[in-house]
């Protein structure tokens, strides 16, 4: 009986053609994904609380229960922070953006509350929501007392 001649490769489990197809599309996919990976890495925001500590004043500058606005030099901008001395060594640093729509809140000494001029959000001295539309408390920032110097860092989670 005459043997049927097959073109080279046909009938093998993993032909040369198949190998090339899988190889080329595989390598192409890896290269494409690598570009996406580079893009994702570049888009990644810096981790929370990683900003360096900056000295914003001396402990004596901040009387007890009198939140005082200070500035933190961020990337090209001044960021507003309220430093709160709660007494007995307890300190808080609160970001000054209202959690509702990011307007700047004011400390109103007459009533002892933070108030937002935009939609009437009200927070207590610790930044907890008392009334109005804000969905959560004012964000806290890193604060450290080293000797008598008050140092503020980035926003905490």
């Amino acid at each position, binding site marked *: 009986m005459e043997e049927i001649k097959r073109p080279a490769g046909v009938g093998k489990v993993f032909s040369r053609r198949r190998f090339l197809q899988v190889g080329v599309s595989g390598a192409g996919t890896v290269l494409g994904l690598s570009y996406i990976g580079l893009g994702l890495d570049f888009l990644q925001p810096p981790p929370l609380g990683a900003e360096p500590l900056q000295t914003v004043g001396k402990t004596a500058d901040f009387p007890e229960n009198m939140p005082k606005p200070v500035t933190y030099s961020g*990337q090209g901008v001044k960021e507003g922070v309220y430093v709160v001395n709660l007494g007995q060594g307890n300190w808080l640093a609160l970001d000054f953006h209202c959690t509702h*729509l*990011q307007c700047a809140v004011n400390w109103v000494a007459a009533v002892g509350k933070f108030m937002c001029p935009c939609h009437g959000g009200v927070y207590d001295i610790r930044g907890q929501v008392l009334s109005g539309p804000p969905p959560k408390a004012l964000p806290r920032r890193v604060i450290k007392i080293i000797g008598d110097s008050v140092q503020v860092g980035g926003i905490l989670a």
Partner: protein
Amino acid sequence: MINWLDERLHVRELTASLFEHPVSKRSNVLDYLGFATFYVFCSQAVTGILLATVYRPTASGAYDSIKQLQGEPVGAFVRSLHSWGANFMVVLLVLHLLRVFYEGAYKKPRELTWLLGSVLLIATLGLAFTGYLLPWDQEGYWATTVGTAMPSHIPWIGDYLVRLLRDGTQVTGATLTRFYSVHMLILPALLLLAFLPHFFFVLRQGMASGDELAKAQKRGKCVDGDSLPFWPDVAVRMILFVLLIGAALWLLAALYPKSLGAPADPLNKSQYVPEPAWYFFGVYQLLKYFPGKLDVLAMVVLPFAGGILLFALPWLDRNPARSVRKRPLALSLAGVLVAGMVFLTYQGMNSVPKALASAGVVVHPGFKENVEPIFQSKCITCHGTSGGYGLDNYTAVMKKNVVPGNPDQSKLIRKLEGSDKPQMPIGQPPLTSDQIQTIRNWIKDGAKNN
């Protein structure tokens, strides 16, 4: 020349397919809106490139570079053209979308054209949003601060998304760099990538209004009576329409030049209250109707549902009919949506605090003209519709705290003057003595709704 090109590239075949087809007489100027949008995009590209040659994309340099540009007449005009162009593009795109919807042109076989059109809409709104920040003025800075905070209402990943948009926890120089690259490179590239197939599909399939014609032609019917040749009849009309749009754009840009506000102050010492670009006013106004915890509905659920509706429309609307009479449900739903959006936008624009009419004391003030503007600009952010004592309309004002004819007995005045603690507006500088005297005079005159 044509022969030389044709010999090498067979351009005659191509131009014939582009220009030599009949267009239904039913087709009208509304079918040229897509073309007009494309013209405005080209104008944006040209003016955008010009602006990019002088713009410095850093927090310290951006505002000054634009201020310098504003000092030169041509520079200021180019910026005005670019700013007006953004408005034109949003409006034309939305009108184009409505026309396509009304004609049922998103249905089979044009689903993909609609899908790409939706991408174009999103990319255009993205361009408008990112472009707003670039001058680094108060308006742009605070609109971006508010706008980028909206995803924080999404459960679990919200806070991360905010940081992703801002490249950090706050709107800083890093945000500006990010927005600059998105505005200049990523979104224009996306726009072109979506536009090319969008345009190709239109060429390939023809306009929906020509489908009847094509069917008749297939049956061997002569369609000359119901149609116009695309070239030159329809093409010339399209060009005329675009020239008209171009003239309107240049005229508006020249008559109402885009101004530049105060430089961005992230500490907001002047108590600037953020407001968005007018085309986002609808969403902005919607937020005011959703109190507290329901914000998530307005900021996340509704936009998300809107997006799904937009992209999936050709598959959600299974009714094959294109004629207006056979689509009562789709058209009335769309009518309600559009009317609602127009109403919200109008409401939103109206609720913006009006500029105070005049300085000085008004002896016999009218409520509408003199008193309400003061409430609008100073009080209603807290004393609005949200509850408690409202100062947003006459009836609410008169519910209590005002004794007609007797300002000294009126709690409103005592609160404004500070004899009743705490003085209003709380946490802000008090009203000027002129403003308080004007309100006093109005109460003395009987606190009428005049």
